[in-house]
């Protein structure tokens, strides 16, 4: 009765064939998560902010709060 000869070659290559696709997949998932979790929401946030932005209204609010040096609130 003889034992089956164990696999003695190609062990690292086998390990790499298993792990490298997982590594690439995980890194692509991380990049996609960052893109759709951070990058795209930030672009959308800027677009939304400026869509409804009323510069004069914001300016008047800041002016009344006394933020500017060149123009003082109405009371002053």
């Amino acid at each position, binding site marked *: 009765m003889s034992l089956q000869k164990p696999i003695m070659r190609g062990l690292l290559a086998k390990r790499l064939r298993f792990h490298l696709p997982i590594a690439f997949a995980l890194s692509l998932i991380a990049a996609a998560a960052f893109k759709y979790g951070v*990058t795209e929401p930030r672009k959308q946030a800027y677009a939304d902010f400026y869509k409804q932005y009323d510069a004069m209204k914001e300016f008047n609010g800041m002016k009344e709060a006394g933020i500017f040096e060149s123009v003082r609130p109405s009371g002053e």
Partner: protein
Amino acid sequence: MAHPSQLGLQDAASPVMEELLHFHDHALMIVLLISTLVLYIIVSMVSTKLTNKYILDSQEIEIVWTILPAVILILIALPSLRILYLMDEINDPHLTIKAMGHQWYWSYEYTDYEDLGFDSYMVPTQDLVPGQFRLLETDHRMVVPMESPIRVLVSAEDVLHSWAVPALGVKMDAVPGRLNQTAFIVSRPGVFYGQCSEICGANHSFMPIVVEAVPLVHFENWSSLMLEDA
């Protein structure tokens, strides 16, 4: 200005800074991609029971890890060059201001129409009023009209300085004997802070920059008042 525990860039107040912000996100995404890959590989190399771990040669992997980094670099370079050329477009400024660096304050000259010039010193900490920011406020601010292209000519009277306002995406070295040009458009009204960005002596950290963007009519009133006071 920056806020406590801030990690990322300041909110953009100019179109160029918005582009730079998005590019930074793009570059950071690529950094995350590479870091995840490398971290996984390190953990897998360290946690193996194999004793003979070192491949002596493999044409396939050599080709992959030459081509893939080249592709990644192109993916970074293309948006980067787009923004670089965007910043250099002919911009036909409405106003030109000279920002001169001194030890240790900035001076601004508005000489397009009249001869307006003033110095801008940091407000010392003991003179701050509640609501003002330590090491960032100045006695006179550089007031500009909002939504107008502005050209700033930056130079220095003594040693190297650098005129920087992060929210506007602007930084330009102030070199004695040289005129450097930069330009920006402020997208919204507000007050934007910056600090000298080139070591220039003992008070390098104490010569901030404050840009105040207001509607054109208020800018004109301000410049008339400043001329009267001068």
